[in-house]
C-alpha cells in the first residue's frame, strides 16, 4: 500500500519456476505425502533451472506476482548435467541487479529441492510465503514513480586541460590511413572528424584523399567498434578501425563471440589520455588501465606506462545509490525508466548489441512489451543489462546516446563490478576466455540458495 500498510485479506501471490526433474517431483511428493503447506505458490514447470531466463521472472512481477521462487536440482544432480550450475551464475548476477534497482530480495528467492525432498519443498514454500507476507504486496511494477531527481554530479573534479593533439601524431595517423586505403589493405577506415559545427563525429572514409579529415583528440568519445558489425561497412572489405583502449575491448568481445574475425579488422590503436565532455574527464577514463591499447596492429602516439588509477565517479554514484533504502532506490529507477521513449539508441550504439532480431523485436511471444510505458521500459532495460552481463566493457556509449539521460552507465557498471568481484572476470581482454555466464566452476558461491 502507498502508506506502507498491508491490506487485510491479502494473500501473497508467489510464482515458482521449478525444474521438471527435481523440484517438480519433490512438490509432487509433498502432495502425495499429504504434507500441509501454504497454497500461495503457482508452479510453472520448466525442463531445467538453466532454462529460466530473467525475462520470465520479470514477467511474473509485471503481471502482479508479489514474490518469485526459483527451484531446481542440487548441484551435481542436474538432469542435463550443468544447467543448474549455469543458472547459479545467472541468478547471482540477476539478484544483485534487482537489489540495485530497489527490489526487496525477499521477493526473489532460490532453492535446491530434489525429487525426494517433499518436506523441504513444503518448508521452503512456507518460509517464502511468510517472508513475502511480512513485507506486503509488491510495489506496482513499472509505475511512474516520483518526479525525476538527478543524483548530484560528482564534486571536486578538476578538469585536466584538453590534450592538444601532437601534430606528428595527427600526420602519422592520416598518412597511415591513406596508405592502408591506397594499398588496399583495408576497404574502409573508421575514425573521427570534425563536422561543420566543429564537433567531433565518426568518419567513414573509403578514399585515400579523405584521410586528411581524420583527427584524434580528447573529444573522440564515440566507440567506433559498433561499425564492425554493420553490413554497409563490412561490405567495403577489411576495416581500419581507429580505436582507443576501451574501444579495443569491444573489438576483443566481438572476436570472442565470433562476430568478426581478428584478421578482418586492422586496429589503429590510439594512445589516449582521456576523453572529455563539457570540460570534465569522462567517468570511465578515471579508472582506465588501457591508455595504451592492449591490442593493436599499429600504434599512434607514445606508449605510456600504466596510468594512475583514480576513483571511478560511476562507482561513487553507485555507492550513493546503494546507501539509499530499497524503496528510495526503487523510486529512483522507476522514475528513470519512466522517461525511456524506446528509441533503442542504447542498443544501436552498443558494439555488442548485434543480435538480429533483438529480443525486443521478437513477437512470438512478445516478451518485452513494445510500448513506452513503465512495464515495457523496465523489462527492456533490465533484460538489456542482463544480456550485456559479462560482455559490456563500460564504454558508456549507451548512456551518452540516451536522449533522456537514463543512467545506463550505472546499471552496466554495477553488473560489471559484481561479475569481477565474483569471478575475477573483466571482458574485453582475452578473446579465448569463455564469457562468465556461459561457464561455471563447481565452487561458485550459492549462499543465497536455500
Amino acid at each position, binding site marked *: 500500500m502507498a502508506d506502507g500498510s498491508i491490506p487485510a485479506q491479502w494473500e501473497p501471490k508467489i510464482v515458482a519456476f521449478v525444474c521438471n526433474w527435481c523440484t517438480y517431483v519433490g512438490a509432487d511428493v509433498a502432495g502425495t505425502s499429504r504434507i500441509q503447506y501454504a497454497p500461495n505458490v503457482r508452479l510453472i514447470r520448466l525442463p531445467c533451472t538453466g532454462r529460466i531466463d530473467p525475462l520470465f521472472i520479470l514477467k511474473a512481477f509485471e503481471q502482479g506476482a508479489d514474490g518469485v521462487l526459483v527451484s531446481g536440482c542440487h548441484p551435481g544432480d542436474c538432469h542435463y548435467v550443468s544447467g543448474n550450475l549455469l543458472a547459479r551464475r545467472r541468478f547471482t548476477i540477476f539478484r544483485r541487479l534487482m537489489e540495485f534497482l530497489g527490489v526487496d530480495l525477499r521477493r526473489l528467492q532460490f532453492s535446491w529441492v530434489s525429487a525426494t525432498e517433499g518436506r523441504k519443498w513444503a518448508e521452503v514454500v512456507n518460509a517464502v510465503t511468510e517472508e513475502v507476507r511480512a513485507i506486503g504486496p509488491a510495489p506496482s511494477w513499472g509505475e511512474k514513480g516520483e518526479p525525476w531527481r538527478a543524483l548530484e554530479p560528482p564534486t571536486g573534479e578538476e578538469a585536466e586541460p584538453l590534450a592538444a593533439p601532437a601534430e606528428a601524431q595527427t600526420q602519422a595517423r592520416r598518412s597511415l590511413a591513406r596508405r592502408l586505403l591506397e594499398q588496399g589493405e583495408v576497404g574502409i577506415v573508421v575514425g573521427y572528424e570534425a563536422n561543420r559545427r566543429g564537433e567531433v563525429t565518426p568518419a567513414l572514409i573509403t578514399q585515400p584523399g579523405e584521410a586528411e579529415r581524420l583527427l584524434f583528440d580528447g573529444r573522440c568519445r*564515440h566507440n567506433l567498434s559498433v561499425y564492425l558489425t554493420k553490413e*554497409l561497412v563490412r561490405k567495403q572489405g577489411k576495416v581500419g578501425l581507429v580505436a582507443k583502449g576501451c574501444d579495443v575491448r569491444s573489438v576483443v568481445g566481438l572476436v570472442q563471440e565470433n562476430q568478426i574475425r581478428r584478421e578482418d579488422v586492422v586496429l589503429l590503436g590510439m594512445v589516449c589520455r582521456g576523453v572529455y565532455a563539457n570540460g570534465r574527464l569522462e567517468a570511465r577514463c578515471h579508472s582506465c588501465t588501457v591508455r595504451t591499447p592492449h591490442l593493436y596492429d599499429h600504434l599512434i602516439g607514445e606508449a605510456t606506462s600504466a596510468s594512475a588509477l583514480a576513483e571511478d565517479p560511476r562507482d561513487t554514484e553507485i555507492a550513493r545509490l546503494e546507501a539509499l533504502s530499497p524503496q528510495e532506490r526503487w523510486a529512483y529507477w522507476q522514475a528513470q525508466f519512466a522517461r525511456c521513449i*524506446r528509441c533503442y*539508441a542504447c542498443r*544501436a550504439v552498443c558494439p555488442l548489441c548485434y543480435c538480429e532480431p533483438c529480443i525486443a523485436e521478437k513477437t512470438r511471444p*512478445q516478451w518485452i512489451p513494445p510500448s513506452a510505458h513503465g512495464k515495457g521500459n523496465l523489462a527492456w532495460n533490465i533484460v538489456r543489462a542482463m544480456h550485456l552481463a559479462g560482455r559490456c566493457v563500460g564504454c558508456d556509449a549507451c548512456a551518452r546516446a540516451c536522449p533522456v539521460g537514463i543512467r545506463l552507465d550505472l546499471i552496466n557498471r554495477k553488473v560489471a563490478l559484481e561479475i569481477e568481484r565474483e569471478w575475477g572476470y573483466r571482458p574485453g581482454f582475452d578473446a579465448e576466455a569463455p564469457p562468465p555466464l556461459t561457464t561455471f566452476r563447481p565452487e561458485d558461491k550459492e549462499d543465497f540458495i536455500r
Partner: protein
Amino acid sequence: MMRKALDEEGLGQWLEALLRGPRRVVAPVREGDLVLFRPITSREEILWDEGKSTLPLKEWLFPPTEPVLHYRFWGNEVEVEDPPLEAPETVVLFARPCDAAALGILDAVFASDYEDAFYLTRRRAMTVVGLSCSRPQPECFCAAVGLSPTATQGSDILLTPLDGRYLVEVLTEKGKRLVEENAALFQEAEGLDKERATAAALAQMGEVEPLGEVSRRLSERFESEMWEVVARKCVGCGVCAFLCPTCHCFDIVDEANAFGGCRCKNWDACAFALFTLHASGHNPRPTQAHRYRQRVMHKFAYFPENFGPTMCVGCGRCLVHCPVGMDIYEIVRILAGGGAA
C-alpha cells in the same frame, strides 16, 4: 492579426493571470539535465531562454505510447471501449517558432482523410504562446526550410523580445481569447520593429543556405550511390525520429493477457530495420542506406509534394542528439546538389 505589446512586468502579470486561470499551463522546465515541457503551477518553474526542449511539443498531442482501444474477453465475446481521453484546456508557453510550425505539419497528417480524435481533441484544447528566438543555437537551420527565428506559423500568439518589451502578435481566435481575458495588461505596439529582431536573430544563425526546392532534385537522385556514402554512418536508432517535432510514424500493437488488454499507438521510426519488413520476409528497405533515404525523401520530397511545406522545421534536435552526428541539412545539400561530399 492584432499587434499588442507587453513589458516585463506586464508579462509577469499575464503569466500570473494564466496560472490563476482555469487552463492548465505547460512551459519549459528543467528536469534533471533535460529541458521538457511540463505543467507548472508557478512562474519560477519556467526555464527562460535555454534553447529548445529535448522532447518536442508533439509529446503533448501525440504521446510516445497511448491506448486507442481497451478490450475485455468474456469467453467468445469481446467487449471493446474507447479509452478515456483527457484533453483539458491547455496553454503552452514559450514554444519556439520551429516547434510551433511543426504543429501545422502534424495537423495536416492527423486531420487529413480520417480525423484522429486523439490528436485533434488535444490540439483543439491547446493554445500555443510562441516565443521568438533572439539567440539561435549552433544547430538551428530554420531559415533553410522557409521559416525564421520569428516565424508565426503554428502559434496562436507569438511574443518577440524587442527593446526590453515584447511584441505580442495575436494570430488566431484562440490567441485573441487569451489576450482579451486580460486585455488591460496589454499595451499598444507602436514603434516595435519586428523586422529588426528577425534580422538580428538571423545574423546569428551563421551560414545557412535556404534549401529551396529540393524535392525534384532529390527525386532525380533517388538511385544515387551517394545515399550509401552519407548513410553508412547511421546506426539505425530512433532518436532523430522520436525527437523530431514533425516525425509522426507510429505502430499499432496489442498488449493483453487472458482477461483483456489494450491496443496501443506507439512512436515508431523508419530508421528501424524492421519498420517495413513484410511477413513474407521481403524488406523493401533492406539496408540503412535505403532507410535513411526514406527519411530524407519523406521530409524534403514526399511531404512537400503532398502537402506543401517541408516536413522539417530546422530545429536541429536530430543533429544534436544523433549518437553519430548525422547532419540532415548537410546531407540534403550534398544530395540535392552543391556542398562537398
